[in-house]
């Protein structure tokens, strides 16, 4: 196996040093090191390989939007070394067979750890539990369960799911959306939805479910994860729950850190996403929550869609936007350049904590000798204008198209192999 030395790279917030990657692990850290190949890391930051707890890879069923392979390539380009593939495929990942298929496709792609997420309920229908134990015991070793895209809205079923997954240290990742309050909803309910005449998705529909779920998790002593938290009120509820010792974790997406609902005034469905883009006050609150650790992680909710599902009128368009390739730059712009977080915090929110929540033991490890060589080398001095036609994902629905984002992934190492080198995919 070829060995690599990354020269003069800064590990998190430290001083420039050299890192040697050999035989799948970090072999040496120090100055004046050599190896078979050299990567210039001067001016760059080394972070542990990013871990996404919330990715839609669309396979099986919607291979026109993304496949495990194309999504793995997009993930590597974004600096990820592990992704959790959401269960809302067709067929739904609600059996050991489907999660093993996705897991095997991930192994074949070989660019990131693909960790399948299992559905909580059969067919995501919210009526009966899926085979949670069988998925946990399968080769895919599922630990994260989610009906993402749909909310487990039945309180009794949610309670049972929270209890049941304790047997194998699983976690239920809830898509918090009260269904009756969001029938036909198109965008954040606020001043702008009223003006645009688009049916509103009120913050309370998210907050009411989160409040209920943290109380349920407390009652049954389970761990709960809240997907794509988007409102100021949700941050407050999570903060309160943590202060009470409730075992809850939460994620925020890059797009909820970056955009407000004002962009919807264009009626361009590239900005149509669920949960919807919120107000400036919400964006400030989720940024503050991520900075102080109330929100544990950033997760992309990478949701590829073919062009025809976005090149249409707003209400006909699909919900979702891609995010794997832009995530680190967006977090850099919204959290680091603003002074809210340092690189150690970025490593925690995008690698260490998501790996812990997903129980991925080989990921999110500290950059030290002996750790698995899952690394991302990020150049914060670079910047890129996002061109939707040049995305590695099979879909082009990036909301950042035409915008300039700071920084660039120079290299990604996955188990010691460079999946990205010199800013180009190496696979």
């Amino acid at each position, binding site marked *: 196996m070829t060995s690599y030395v990354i020269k003069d790279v800064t590990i998190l917030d430290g001083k420039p040093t050299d890192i040697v990657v050999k035989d799948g692990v970090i072999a040496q850290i120090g100055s004046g090191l050599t190896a078979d190949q050299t990567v210039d890391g001067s001016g760059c930051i080394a972070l542990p390989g990013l871990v996404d707890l919330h990715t839609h890879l669309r396979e099986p069923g919607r291979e026109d939007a993304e496949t495990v392979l194309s999504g793995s390539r997009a993930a590597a380009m974004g600096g990820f070394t592990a992704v959790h593939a959401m269960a809302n495929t067709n067929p739904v990942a609600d059996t050991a067979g489907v999660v093993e298929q996705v897991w095997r496709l991930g192994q074949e792609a070989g660019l990131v750890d693909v960790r399948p997420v299992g559905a909580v309920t059969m067919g995501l229908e919210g009526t009966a539990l899926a085979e949670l134990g069988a998925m946990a015991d399968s080769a895919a070793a599922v630990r994260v369960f989610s009906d993402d895209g749909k909310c487990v809205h039945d309180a009794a079923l949610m309670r049972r799911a929270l209890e049941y997954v304790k047997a194998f240290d699983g976690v239920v990742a809830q898509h918090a959306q009260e269904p009756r309050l969001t029938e036909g909803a198109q965008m954040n309910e606020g001043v702008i*939805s009223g003006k645009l*005449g688009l*049916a509103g998705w009120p913050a309370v529909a998210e907050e009411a479910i989160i409040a209920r779920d943290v109380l349920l998790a407390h009652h049954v002593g389970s761990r709960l994860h809240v997907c794509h938290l988007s409102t100021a009120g949700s941050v407050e509820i999570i903060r309160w729950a943590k202060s009470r010792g409730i075992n809850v974790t939460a994620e925020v997406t890059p797009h909820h850190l970056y955009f407000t609902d004002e962009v919807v005034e264009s*009626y*361009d469905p590239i900005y149509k996403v669920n949960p919807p883009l919120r107000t400036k006050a919400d964006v400030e609150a989720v940024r503050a929550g991520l900075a102080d650790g109330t929100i544990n992680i950033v997760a992309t909710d990478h949701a590829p869609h073919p062009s025809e599902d976005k090149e249409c009128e*707003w209400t006909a368009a699909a919900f979702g936007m891609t995010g794997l390739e832009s995530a680190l730059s967006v977090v850099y712009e919204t959290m680091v350049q603003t002074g809210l977080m340092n690189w150690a915090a970025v490593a925690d929110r995008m690698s260490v904590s998501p790996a812990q929540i997903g129980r991925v033991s080989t990921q999110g490890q500290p950059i030290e000798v002996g750790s698995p060589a899952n690394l991302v080398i990020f150049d914060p001095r670079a910047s890129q204008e996002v061109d939707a036609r040049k995305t590695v994902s099979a879909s082009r629905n990036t909301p950042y198209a035409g915008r300039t984002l700071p920084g660039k992934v120079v290299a990604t190492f996955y188990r010691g192999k460079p999946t990205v080198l010199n800013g180009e995919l190496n696979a």
Partner: protein
Amino acid sequence: MKHLLSAADLSYEEAILVLDTAKQLAAATEHGVGKLPPLRGRTVVNLFYEDSTRTRISFEAAAKRLSADVINFSAKGSSVSKGESLKDTALTLEAMGADAVVIRHNSSGAPHRLANAGWISGGVVNAGDGTHEHPTQALLDAYTLRNHLRNGEGDLKGVNVTIVGDVLHSRVARSNVLLLNTLGAKVRLVAPPTLLPYGVEDWDCEVSYDFDASLEGSDAVMMLRVQRERMNAAYFPNAHEYSSRYGLSVTRMNRLSESAVVMHPGPMNRGMEISADVADSQRSVIVEQVANGVSVRMAVLYLILGGSESK
């Protein structure tokens, strides 16, 4: 004026220009000239994704009186019902050489997409989109108000307009609030709290839940259609309660000042938001609104298609 997508697109000067142009065109067609020539050789497409008899006929009459060629394209009986996308329909219309597209769509913002997505080069007129806007309705309402309250000239400064009903789902209300403000009128919205949009307190108007308290001082009362089905979604308990609290009865009408007019964009639910006696009363200008609709739409098409270019 390239497009007319929202009443907010119109500056004060543009709004007055539309009204004045409508007045001239109305006068010209009244004097025995069946058709006027300015849009000869131009093609106007009526692209209607929603059933609408009066608006479609109004636009069709307006285009024809200006000698434009009119193509009616309705979602029913066209390839749309076979699932053709708005984009492909737009590309087809573009290839056929549409100079202007008048679009009615059940999706809010569809006219914006049609105008801004780069699919077509012609002008786009919003003939009502979802629960967003209906700018030509607001123009014809302003035109009607100006005729009755300002002798057909100038703006609507100081005129008090009360708009009553399902504001939440009303594209007419949104466009009227915007345009009436541009023209200097004062707007008051009256509705049960369930039928007001979230954030309405930030709009440029007064808001009241009490119709009776809003009658005095109104120069015009505009009643909005309320769909009976709304009560199934718990917006109000039943039609009777709605009607007694927010319907315009003869009793309420008699409390209006003598010069005040009663308007309705149609189609009416007689007995629901407006009683039959009120709709047919002297104060009602509802039929006149329809007639004025043609003149105002002539003006909009004339201005968008650049009447000056015609020979």
